[in-house]
């Protein structure tokens, strides 16, 4: 073959050096007297602006019996306020030419509008209004909770892999709130009341529990003034006490099986691993990030190369580490076996991928590739206002600063092969492992079942 076409790239060549952290002022940050943090990233490419509000209240702040309240309230936030009628919010944002939506996670609830920059003042006024003046009635609640139940049926109850993921987390965690699904258990949704939702709103929706993120063709000084005008009038509140709810140390492998209509089995393996707390001093979370990337960060990564294309034991395989959240972290590997392969073979193959790294380490080429992907993605993300706003907001909502984003990126670039090998050795014992297996059931129970070979019950 010819190498003439494919000279060593500039990207690969610069990887020896640590990149300098950005020194310019953008983004800009300001805190109102009531505790609201405002972060503005000026991006003048197009006359568009993204306005987001992030509340540090997610499913992990719920209690048993009240699961799904954070998410149900997110739906109810569109039902009108004392001065904005039901459905008006949707109509007014649409009339600007913009679009909007909201989302709830284990860690936070967020709301966003994407609008022409001339409409920013209007949508910020609407968003600020519903921070304190939400007014839904019991009838609206009764109707909307039915929508949420339909959402649960769609996303989880009729989705085998979502059920498996729900069972995995409910098994891996016993004390930590990440054991509960964000959308809520169906029985909790059936028993939720309008009063429950109102109490959630009263407890958590306040300027000192919120972060406003604005990205787009704006001037930060004007945004700070606008934020003061719209959000500055609210008082800070005393937030409920958040207890740590630390998960006790797991002492032995846990297994869970989910039966659902499907053709093929699926295996998920989750190990308890440390999460990121101190962006400058921690090392292991970054090494786990790189481990996940070496396994699954790109097309040439190990799981696709070895299990899908090489041995062809899996139709698909993935790995991920979620150490950047408010709660405890899992390192999850998952795969769907190929037609003739068993669940046991997949489990063994996934374990051996970790074992190989624990014993042999990773190559310099693999480490370099992880860094190349990072550098390229830092450029590509600038093509999306929404991606940049999400990155800032999710870091802030998890308790970090937007300033930590670049520190994290630079820290990941300093991870060594030895550090990756060390975490692969340290954290992947069976005692901290939970395995969830999808046991496929025929769609028509009367039809003969195509039993996956060697399925272990």
């Amino acid at each position: 073959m010819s190498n003439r076409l494919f000279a060593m790239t500039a990207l690969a060549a610069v990887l020896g050096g640590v990149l300098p952290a950005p020194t310019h002022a953008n983004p800009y940050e300001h805190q109102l007297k009531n505790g609201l943090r405002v972060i503005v990233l000026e991006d003048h490419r197009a006359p568009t602006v993204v306005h987001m509000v992030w509340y540090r209240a997610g499913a992990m702040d719920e209690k048993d019996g009240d699961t799904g309240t954070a998410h149900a309230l997110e739906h109810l936030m569109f039902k009108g306020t004392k001065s904005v009628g039901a459905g008006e919010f949707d109509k007014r944002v649409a009339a600007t030419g913009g679009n909007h939506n909201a989302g709830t996670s284990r860690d936070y609830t967020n709301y966003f509008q994407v609008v022409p920059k001339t409409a920013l003042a209007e949508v910020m006024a609407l968003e600020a209004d519903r921070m304190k003046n939400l007014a839904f009635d019991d009838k609206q609640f009764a109707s909307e909770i039915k929508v949420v139940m339909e959402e649960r049926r769609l996303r989880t109850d009729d989705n085998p892999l979502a059920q498996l993921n729900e069972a995995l987390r409910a098994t891996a965690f016993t004390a930590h709130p990440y054991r509960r699904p964000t959308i809520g258990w169906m029985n909790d949704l059936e028993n939720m009341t309008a009063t429950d939702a109102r109490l959630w709103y009263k407890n958590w929706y306040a300027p000192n529990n919120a972060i406003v993120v604005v990205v787009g063709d704006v001037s930060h000084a004007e945004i700070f003034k606008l934020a003061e005008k719209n959000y500055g009038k609210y008082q800070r509140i005393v937030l409920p006490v958040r207890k740590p709810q630390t998960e006790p140390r797991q002492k032995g492998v846990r297994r869970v099986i989910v039966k659902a209509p499907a053709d093929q089995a699926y295996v998920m393996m989750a190990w308890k691993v440390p999460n990121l707390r101190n962006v400058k001093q921690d090392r292991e979370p970054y090494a786990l990030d790189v481990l996940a990337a070496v396994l699954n960060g790109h097309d040439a990564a190990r799981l696709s190369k070895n299990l899908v294309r090489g041995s062809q034991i899996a139709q698909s395989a993935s790995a991920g580490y979620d150490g950047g959240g408010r709660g405890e972290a899992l390192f999850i590997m998952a795969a769907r076996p190929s037609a003739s392969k068993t669940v046991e073979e997949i489990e063994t193959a996934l374990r051996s991928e970790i074992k190989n790294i624990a014993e042999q380490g990773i190559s310099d080429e693999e480490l370099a590739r992880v860094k190349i992907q990072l550098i390229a993605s830092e450029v590509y993300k600038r093509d999306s206002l929404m991606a940049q706003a999400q990155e800032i907001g999710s870091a802030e909502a998890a308790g970090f600063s937007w300033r930590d984003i670049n520190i994290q990126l630079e820290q990941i670039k300093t991870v060594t092969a030895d550090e990756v090998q060390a975490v692969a050795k340290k954290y992947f014992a069976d005692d901290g492992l939970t395995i969830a297996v999808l046991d496929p059931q025929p769609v028509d129970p009367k039809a003969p079942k195509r039993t996956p070979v060697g399925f272990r019950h």
Partner: protein
Amino acid sequence: MKSHPANIIHAVAFAGAVFFSALANAGPAIEQWIAPSGARVYFVEIRTLPILDVQVDFTAGGTQVSPGKAGLAGLTAGLLDAGINDADTVLSEEQISGRWVDLGAIVGTSADQDRASVSLRTLSSSAEKEGSLALLSKILASPSFPPEILEREKQRNISAIREGETRPAVIASRRFATLMYPDHPYGILPTTQSVASIERADLVAFHRAHYAASAASVSIIGDVSRAEAEAIAQRLTSALPAGEASNPVPQVTMPLETVEKIAHPATQSHMRVGVPALRRGDPDFFPLIVGNYTLGGGGFASRLIQEVRDKRGLAYSVGSNFSPRKLDGPFEISLQTKRDQADAALKLVNQELAKFIASGPTPVELAAAKKNLVDGFGLRLDSNAKLMAHLSVIGYYQLPLTYLDDYQAKVQAVTIDQIKAAFAKHVPLGGLVTVIVATD
């Protein structure tokens, strides 16, 4: 050594607003020419980010596949980067995927019923750009289609089809397409049997016939000059096969009115209602798109969301959509509801559709639709990636180069009478296809 990507990143933050400064009134400046290879080229120069996006489209979708070989278009596109073999380059699948990673580039291939698409996003620094374009041109012109990789991908496709046959949403979509297009390639989808019958010779012949420069549409956006874009387009298409004329695709005939129920144990019924309705370039495009905003395309502001979801809590997701294709693409209403509510929800949706076809939007609704579509026009073009989605459609379907410039005026000109007439013509109530999966 080339410029340091990190330096480029920092420069970007200070770049001024040179991107569509006249956005409120016009689209971006599209340049168009024919490359010496015969390929049609569409180019927008955008210098604010050190990124280059390229997409090459061919008439190499499902309609070009011979009977019994459904799945061939997708496998051919998907295996373009499974190996390269020509006079000066032999690369394996692993070598190619490693190259893309080392270049920091993102490459994608796909095929639908009309077209096959190959897309590239690369940094515009010269080593990355040079390496990426070199590799892309080889992938397009000299794929080796290794037989063992074809076998592997056939098995993965077959497994995915089997898995899909257990999922209510997939069952509904597939059956809906088959019933809407009973005697047309648009209704023919890959099956386990059709995929199993595909051989390497089929991929080689399909590539040779349909990946030709004369039929290619090349879209280029980003940090390159016109002169450079000309060279890029020629480079990507000069070594392509000579090709053959596309197979003629028969006209779409309207299906008979059908309601089909399919058993499934899911907790929700999945419903589809629709009809073949709209081709690219149809003069009724604007009345239908503007009208559909009010009916079910305008997100939270649409009638279907208000009536089905907001007022009655019957569904989480409900909407209507036109998907224009080269020939009549589908109009489709889609929703899911708890299975004992399926009849009530379907009745409501059909009532709303009939009411809309009879009366169209109210003047207030029409004004709201226009306001969103006109004032939000810029939001649909405010990144290189979003612009590429439009540019590649303009190029592949040969829409007027002024399509984006004219968009707002054409939306503004739509009247209630035009919407009523267009819906009556394109969405005939007596000919709807309805599929309900998981119902009692």
